[in-house]
């Protein structure tokens, strides 16, 4: 049973790893490398790896391996508590893996006289277990009680905690059960101790007192002379390969506290069940590792190392595409990026989880896999991706070194390529895209801008040219007036007497020979149209979207009309109307 399940788990693990690694080369979220074949990417990756290994950058790798992978400097910088948490789980688990799970393979071969029941192994195994449990407790505390704002836990996060906890707890219970088990004790006596009658009882007394064995024959008070003889027997037959059980402090404590249940556990063969739970949980974890968050134990170090030596400007685009899919596996959903996100606060007002970097990764995974995403969800993803100031903070703080900045840039263009209008393009958030426009296909670059402009201006509606019928006021117009009147800043529009000072001081207007033709309405005309509530006329005007908010109009207005603030309100209104139209489509 044990070896069959181990082999099965190992097989699933190996296939899983191969499958996952293949996805790094097969999938992409990088529109700039979509044309490169998987074979080309494998080749580029090998070339790149060799080039780094045989250059001075190899020493950078060494440094990063020691400081960031082993000592986890990046987590330390972010939070001492989280560093303690991760270090505990990491070191505890590694120790258990080497000195316990692989006991026969590694320490058994290296250290002569290795016995799992002998110190320091007996003690260290419990210490390692205690470390893992302490780390897990911090993790649970952080996710449930500490819970920083805008910090989400998903199923993957809990799955990992639960599976580790099951392995740990079952292990401790198992060892405790073995300690108190009378049949296990009897077996040891048969195997190792050549004792008869009085000596046998004495040894048993000694073990019941000191080793937490629960015997049906012996209970307190203990016979002092039996204890003395028992000690002699113990020294003669047992102590050489069995340290005192209390060194296994966690199991010993557990054994002591479940003493009354020992007989029942033994009769029901609970220890057997625990044994199955313990190794099966470990094997399930192993098999499932490549598909779970646990995969980060392999991929996060890779991400740290790769990002330490890869520079955006000089890297092969094929390798960037590959790295980005790898990075998706490296993410541990620790939430550091979100906690430090510059625009994370916007989530309090705009309920779109994709604003938050840690949740954008989830969207990236869906997009990489080419999953069918419904249009409304895709709009939310696109909006979340665009709502980013590209301040580089997330990349700076990511404990596993993911180049999130570049991830968002590529992902944004990847999603924009699907041709759904993104209205936030009309805001200053477009600066980053603009400053990087050399990297984007010029046609695609402009197309995205036009789509946004058109989405607000619309292609239908009441287009009016000079000489057509006079405008009629309808109920929609009252809505706009209501909105502008409700606000102490925007209701200043009623003071306007159309002196045109605003339009004359506007640098946008001054930029054109014939501004009416390009801009549709000039600022003073927008104010007049707003007075009449002619929202569709205003929304069509390029002036609204081409306003710089330089406040020259407002500063110069002799009537103190808050011209810029009114245009501002109108633009936001135009965008939200267009957004609703898009949703209803």
């Amino acid at each position: 049973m044990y070896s069959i399940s181990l082999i099965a788990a190992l097989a699933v693990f190996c296939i899983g790893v191969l499958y996952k690694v293949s996805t790094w080369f097969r999938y992409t979220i990088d529109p700039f490398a979509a044309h490169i074949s998987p074979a080309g990417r494998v080749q580029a990756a090998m070339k790149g790896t060799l080039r780094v290994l045989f250059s001075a950058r190899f020493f950078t790798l060494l440094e990063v391996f020691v400081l960031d992978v082993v000592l986890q400097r990046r987590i330390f910088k972010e939070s001492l508590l989280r560093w303690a948490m991760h270090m505990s789980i990491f070191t505890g688990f590694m120790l258990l893996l080497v000195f316990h799970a692989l006991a026969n393979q590694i320490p058994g071969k290296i250290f002569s006289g290795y016995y799992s029941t002998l110190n320091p192994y007996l003690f260290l195994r419990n210490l390692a277990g205690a470390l893992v449990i302490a780390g897990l407790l911090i993790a649970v505390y952080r996710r449930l009680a500490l819970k920083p704002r805008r910090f989400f836990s998903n199923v993957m996060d809990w799955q990992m905690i639960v599976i580790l906890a099951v392995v740990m707890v079952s292990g401790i219970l198992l060892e405790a059960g073995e300690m108190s088990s009378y049949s296990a004790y009897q077996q040891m006596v048969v195997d190792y101790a050549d004792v008869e009658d009085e000596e046998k009882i004495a040894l048993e007394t000694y073990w019941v007192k000191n080793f937490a064995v629960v015997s049906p024959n012996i209970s307190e008070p203990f016979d002092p002379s039996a204890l003395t003889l028992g000690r002699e027997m113990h020294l003669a037959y047992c102590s050489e390969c069995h340290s005192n059980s209390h060194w296994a402090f966690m199991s010993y404590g557990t054994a002591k506290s479940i003493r009354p249940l020992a007989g029942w556990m033994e009769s029901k063969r609970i220890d057997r069940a625990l044994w199955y739970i313990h190794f099966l949980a470990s094997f399930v974890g192993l098999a499932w590792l490549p598909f779970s968050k646990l995969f980060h134990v392999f991929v996060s170090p890779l991400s740290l190392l790769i990002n330490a030596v890869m520079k955006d400007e000089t890297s092969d685009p094929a390798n960037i595409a590959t790295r980005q899919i790898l990075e998706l596996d490296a993410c541990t959903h620790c939430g550091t990026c979100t906690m430090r996100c510059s625009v994370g606060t916007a989530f309090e007002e705009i309920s779109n989880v994709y604003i938050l970097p840690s949740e954008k990764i989830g969207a990236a995974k869906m997009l990489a896999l080419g999953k069918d995403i419904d249009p409304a969800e895709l709009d939310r993803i696109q909006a979340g991706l665009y709502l980013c100031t590209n301040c580089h903070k997330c990349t700076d703080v990511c404990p596993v070194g993911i180049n999130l900045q570049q991830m968002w840039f590529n992902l944004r263009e990847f999603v924009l390529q699907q041709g759904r209008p993104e209205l936030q393009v009309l805001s200053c958030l477009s600066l980053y895209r603009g400053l990087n426009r050399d990297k984007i296909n010029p046609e695609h670059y402009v197309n995205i801008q036009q789509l946004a402009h058109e989405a607000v201006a619309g292609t239908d509606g009441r287009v009016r040219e000079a000489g057509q019928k006079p405008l009629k006021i309808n109920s929609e117009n009252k809505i706009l007036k209501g909105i502008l009147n409700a606000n102490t800043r925007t209701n200043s529009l009623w003071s306007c007497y159309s002196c045109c000072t605003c339009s004359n001081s506007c640098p946008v207007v001054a930029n054109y020979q014939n501004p009416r033709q390009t801009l549709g309405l000039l600022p003073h005309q927008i104010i007049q149209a707003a007075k009449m509530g002619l929202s569709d006329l205003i929304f069509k005007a390029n002036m609204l979207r081409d306003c710089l908010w330089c406040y020259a109009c407002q500063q110069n207005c002799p009537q103190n009309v808050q011209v810029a603030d009114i245009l501002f309100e109108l633009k936001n209104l135009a965008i939200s109307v267009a957004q609703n139209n898009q949703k209803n489509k």
Partner: protein
Amino acid sequence: MIKKVMMKFAIQRCCSTPVFLKQYETSTDAVLRQFGVDVIDIKETGCCGYPLKNINIKAFVLSSARNLALAEKKRLNMITFCNCCYGSLKHVDHLLKTDTVLASEINAKLKKEKLNWQGRVEIKHLLDVLYEDIGLETIRGQLVKTFKGLNIATHYGCHLLRPLNVAGFDNPFSPSKFDRLVELTGAVSIPWRSKLECCGSPLWGVNDDLSAGITHKKVTSAAQAGADFLCTACPYCQLQFDRVRRMTGSRPDEPAGPPSVLYTQLLGLCLGIEESSLGIEKNEMNCSGLLNFLIHTEHNRSDPQSVSGPLSP
């Protein structure tokens, strides 16, 4: 003897500088350090909300209010080297002070993060701190070099000046503080026609032709007035005059026009701050010509009065 002014501010950094204009951060830090001004980077500080203005007003207000509340919690005033951050913080502070309903709504949101906006934080632009808090005389006293024969087109930027009831840095129609700071370095702050106009940055990425057109007009105006360099104190203006101009190139029939330097670079050179902090070589247009105008001053540092004469225009 160097006079140190002990001051402490929470700093609101700009979201664009880490990627595009690191030299503005390092030069600002170096200049402020020179005068003993302590800047505290509060870890939780986020975006001022400026780009959210066009998306969701509440999100914009909350962003600035949160940063102000963070500074308030530490009992610090706030400094920023970005006009847009300055404008946003000032705008939000103004809105909250005039709209109590909005203020209580925002405070209810801030409470979830154990924060509270009470409007006690003074918001200062870097130029404000240099001009008002450190003072021209103190700065003059620390100059080790000055410029000679250098014509600077001083660019204020919109949100430092307008609207007056919100920004309040200087007279929005005929400001002089920034000019006086520029002239402190020995340079001449020349008069130029479109000095107070927008740089065009807000539309870069939205309507590139218009944005570049406005920038071009400004730069041409500065060139016509005889400027050797433009001088800015805002990341967006600087990026527009530097990176965007490099990207768009000058028109074939016209000379390239004056490159743009940050005020902290200009002043930093005169303060003798090491070049690695000033990062003048990081500007995308070649600004190395600036060094040709630099001369060693002969003034005695302990007597700043002795140089005030020849340096003042």
